[in-house]
């Protein structure tokens, strides 16, 4: 394996939440959206990130891209992003591009599709001749499956799936080394989801782009990822190669997530037990002590409230942050 393109260590993102009705100088409450995430990403590798809403997936993506301030270290191609000057950081953004959740909202409604796709190019290489820009845009539109003669149309004239293709074309025009996909398919309907996921897989195979693929739907993520990371309340729960995670999950939260993926066979689906995760995500303003998952965990013990679990190496390439990872989960037994 070659040197990792992206190394993230102990990434934390904390937001200030102003106290309601407080004075301007009242110290704000701290909301930790991402709490100490570390991972490496090799060139051409796809890392899937799953977790329910509010688990800090999107914040993680924004921290990597650098649109929210974070602490911890992010090394991209061996360079520390945090140490870059504003100008260097702008140049660095050539290599990292992002695809957004809401395909239409991510496109400026007053710009034509051609201008939108060309924007990264004209921003970083303003001297590119116009004819060349136009040619690149047309090539890319064809590449992502859009008719190139739609360049002068406006975003609102396209469907959600087409808009997402426009977003992908914009992200690819500079041949980035890393693509951050923030729930790129959750706003699309299922048949279009498959098209977009397949497009991303093809692009990755042809161009060798590394990706961080975020979704709340495990069945989509396991389709495209080499490795999967499960997050809960901003913390890492479990990480493993995609197959291994799906077939042999060790963390109770991952087990619940996997059992909630429907089986596309009504008979089987009816027959299997459906353990349901009770309760809601605790408020990230006052996370539970110790293990953050303990309030909903069926096998929580007193130790879970006292000692936050470190990531245990449970198998080659698989880590789970649970003290009792090798004990069976009560409600899951029937399922196994």
């Amino acid at each position, binding site marked *: 394996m070659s040197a990792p393109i992206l190394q993230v260590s102990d990434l934390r993102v904390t937001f200030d939440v102003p106290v309601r009705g407080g004075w301007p100088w009242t110290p704000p409450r701290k909301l930790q959206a991402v709490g100490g995430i570390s991972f490496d990403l090799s060139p051409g590798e796809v890392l899937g990130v799953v977790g329910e809403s509010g688990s800090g997936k999107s914040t993680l993506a*924004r921290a990597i*891209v*650098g*649109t929210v301030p974070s602490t911890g270290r992010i090394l991209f191609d061996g360079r520390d992003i945090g140490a870059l000057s504003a100008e260097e*950081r*702008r*140049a*660095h*953004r*050539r290599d*990292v*591009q*992002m695809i*957004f*959740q*809401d395909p239409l*909202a*991510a*496109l*400026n*409604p*007053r*710009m*034509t*599709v051609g201008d939108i796709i060309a*924007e*990264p190019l004209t*921003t*970083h290489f303003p001297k590119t001749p116009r004819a060349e820009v136009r040619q690149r845009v047309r090539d890319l539109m064809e590449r992502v499956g859009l*008719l*190139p*003669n*739609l*360049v*002068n*149309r*406006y975003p*609102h*004239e*396209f469907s959600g799936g087409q808009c997402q293709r426009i*977003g992908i074309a*914009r992200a690819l025009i500079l041949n980035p080394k890393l693509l951050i996909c923030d729930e790129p398919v959750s706003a699309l309907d299922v048949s279009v989801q498959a098209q977009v996921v397949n497009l991303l897989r093809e692009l990755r195979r042809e161009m060798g782009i590394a990706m961080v693929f975020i979704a709340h739907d495990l069945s989509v993520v396991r389709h495209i990822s080499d490795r999967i990371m499960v997050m809960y309340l901003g913390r890492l729960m479990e990480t493993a190669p995609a197959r291994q995670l799906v077939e042999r999950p060790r963390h109770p939260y991952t087990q619940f997530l996997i059992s909630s993926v429907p089986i596309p066979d009504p008979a089987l689906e009816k027959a299997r037990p459906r353990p349901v995760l009770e309760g809601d995500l605790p408020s990230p303003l006052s996370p539970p002590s110790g293990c953050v998952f303990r309030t909903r965990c069926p096998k929580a013990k007193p130790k879970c409230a006292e000692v936050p679990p470190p990531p245990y190496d449970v198998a080659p390439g698989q880590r789970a942050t649970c003290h009792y990872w090798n004990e069976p989960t009560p409600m899951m037994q029937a399922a196994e």
Partner: protein
Amino acid sequence: MAFHDPTADALQAPARPDKGRSLWTDARRRFFRNRAATVALVALVLIAVFAFLGGFIAQYERDYVDFSLIGINATKGVPSIATGHYFGTDQEGRDLFARTVQGTRLSLLIGVVGSMVAVIVGTLYGAISGYFGGRVDSVMMRVVDILLSIPFMFVLILMLVMFGRSLLMLFIGIGLISWLSMARIARGQTLSIKNKEFVEAAIATGVRPLTIILRHVVPNLLGVVIVYATLLIPEMIIYESFISFLGLGVQEPNTSLGALISRGAGQIGNGVPWQLGFPLFFFVVMLFAFFFVGDGLRDAIDPKDR
């Protein structure tokens, strides 16, 4: 509205890049479907033509005084085609038609200039303040708050008294205050636009902040700004008229609708109703037209309608 499939269209004419329907085109179509607004726009165009070309029809100079008419206005200064005084004469025996043309032109200019200043300065100020946020925003908006809290009519009158009554002073005075509320509106809009994903996409791409403001923020708040600017024009005209009504506005031989109305109102008991009627007619029609056009624009550009 017929839905058409862009892909199907494109297949029919594969070679030529086809033209998109921008949001502006849509808005224009909606605007012209609104009958009241269209009529008002036509009225405005006619008034503008009257104000800028009416001087060619006028038979007299606006400052030509016909001494023979002074004192017998009510009988000899009646509006008539034969004498060439289409709108009659005023108290001094000057041609009211020529004076109304000039007054309308001045009032229009005041309104348009005031609102242009508001659009340019106010929009940029508000967009910058809202986009950068935080301390920059606080300081910039407090400045606006302070300026807004000064009773501007009072200051304007003081300025006119101190620096002398000149057209330039009037433009400066009106320009100074017109952008304040526009800046607030632009800032509010910017606050919601800057959290949209396309702005984040631009930041993530590495676009410079000023380019983001000009390319991504301003075009998207322009709809609201245009509507507000259209409604601001009549407001400016009213301010100017009020100042002129007080006798502090334009100086003779220049005049404005406000000054004409003031003079006409003074003569109301002397049997010369045209001296009030004609300026008032143009004043009211112009204001109504601006309000209707503004309303029509608001309906056409309203983002919820998309």
